[in-house]
């Protein structure tokens, strides 16, 4: 099904932030905001919840640490014990470096993999960019048009009165 959007184009981050607040206050639902760079404070005005990716990293790190310790203790302590440099079979202090490295490796990779999955980042030719200028110098606010419900001219006026430099319509083929 095709979806129709009204795009408010802004050219300043502070105007945009103010506009988001005012427009949300009128009860209009903002579908998405696209910007060329991360805007500080946009999460609060858009009501985006804090990302839970750090939790993924924490458990990834925990897994890495446990795995590394288990691997070293099992290999050198149980599977094939050898005396190396007169040290005990399970010489914990010298297992620390590898444990640390694997903790970091697992934490970083688990978080990054989950980031790619939840953000839907994958090599793809079909990219749904609403307005190509949003990766260059414009901030784009997309509001979904519901047939028969949305008053287009009122929406247009609302966007313009809040500092939009342009208002466009865009149809997205799903």
């Amino acid at each position: 099904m095709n979806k129709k959007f009204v795009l408010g184009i802004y050219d300043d981050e502070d105007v945009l932030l103010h506009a988001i607040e005012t427009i949300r206050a009128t009860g209009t639902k903002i579908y998405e905001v696209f910007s060329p760079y991360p805007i500080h404070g946009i999460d609060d005005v858009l009501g985006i919840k804090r990302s839970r990716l750090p939790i993924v990293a924490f458990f990834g790190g925990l897994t890495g640490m446990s795995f590394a310790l288990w691997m070293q203790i099992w290999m050198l302590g149980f599977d094939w014990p050898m005396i190396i440099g007169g040290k005990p079979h399970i010489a914990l202090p010298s297992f620390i470096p590898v444990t640390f490295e694997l903790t970091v490796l697992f934490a970083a990779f688990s978080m990054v993999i989950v980031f790619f999955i939840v953000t839907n980042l994958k090599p793809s030719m079909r990219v749904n960019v609403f307005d190509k200028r949003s990766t260059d110098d414009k901030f784009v606010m997309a509001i979904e048009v519901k047939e028969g419900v949305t008053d287009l001219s009122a929406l247009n006026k609302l966007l313009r009165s809040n500092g939009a430099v342009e208002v466009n319509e865009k149809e997205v083929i799903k």
Partner: protein
Amino acid sequence: MQHVSPIREPLVTGGKTYHDITEDVCRQVEAGPNPRWAAALAVSLVGLAIFFYSVYRTLWFGIGEWGLNRTVGWAWDITNFVWWVGIGHAGTLISAVLLLFRQKWRSSINRAAEAMTIFAVICAAMFPVLHMGRPWLAYWVLPLPNTFGSLWVNFNSPLLWDVFAISTYFSVSLVFWYIGLIPDFATIRDRAVGPIARRAYSILSMGWTGSAKAWSRYETVSLILAGVATPLVLSVHTIVSMDFATSVIPGWHTTIFPPYFVAGAIFSGFAMVLTLMIITRKVFHLENYITLEHIESMNKVIITTGSIVGVAYTTEFFIAWYSGVEYESYAFLNRAFGPYWWAYWSMMTCNVITPQLFWFRTIRRSLTATFIISIFVNIGMWFERFVIIVTSLHRDYLPSSWAMFSPTIIDVGIYVGTIGLFFTLFFLFVKFFPVVNMAEVKAILKSSSEVTHTHADTMHGTDKDLNTNTHHRHE
């Protein structure tokens, strides 16, 4: 709204807009090859050819092609390995540590510095792998089952720690760098004219749209990656130093090694960043993004770490005497006044004396002086590793086995070759990848550009005189 003190120097000059940033950075990616770039790449390719030839000789005839002997079993290979790994550290420092410290000046140099890290680690990895003699068995360093043919690897060995440290460091740095590149690839994709460019950058940008939610996650991921990369970078050179410190060779068996090596790594890395950035900003006309303020900040890091290294050299010498250990004292006297005295004093001159020139503001802000000193530091840090490794080994406990080391042409070839490899990769990077992080520079533009600073002057009426004076002083 971010607030930046009006006394701070602008980080982006020339009254740039968001669109100007896109244009200035995408230009070298989109335009045809710049003749100066092509010439530089050609020279690097000659270096790469030397690398391949030397590697071929090493593999075909064996390690005997190198100048190593029974006494000096580690020489240029490990020197070059430590040198390259050290150079890599500045990239992570800029991208991770300075991110945690909220240093905005990192934004325009972090991309290139991180690329440098990755390429330097690739060069570094060549040496231990080639020194194995049979590099096709390099996977034996992994913990493979006993039934595979050998015993489990020895987890008590710092050389094995190195395997884990370097590979983790390489992969985490690569991922960190790539995530930063995604939004910029999307910018290039949305501007691309030709079908090949559009296809290539579409795949590279992974369908990035720049939605607020994606940016929010992106920021979280960057912050956490910076948080884990910071202890990681310290661990890498700590472990590299333990390759030496856990042995019982005089001059190596010291507890000062980990911090001393880490400081040295950052020192040499920043020197290499400066060497590269001074050339890059000139060739690609990025003077408005990599300003004198950036150069000066990096020079301040150089003088700090250079001084730490200087203190470490002195401490080592003092402790050698104070410990009362005959062998330790001899090792240090031999370093400074033995047959390799010239290497020791080259190291002292390049690493301890030359960076002290940066106490002068005019020298810190002079491109020519900075460029020359950065080369000196690169040379000095190479000599540091050479001095530590060769002078400690060549006269060991048994005078009958004392020997000298001299490199063969193949040793030189591999070293020069890795420099060729490094620059080949770097030049390809600057041509096909956005060399400045556009998204991050745009993010700081509003608070840190020249335009904002002029605004600040008019806004804060009472501060006006102060601000104008500051600006005059800087111009």
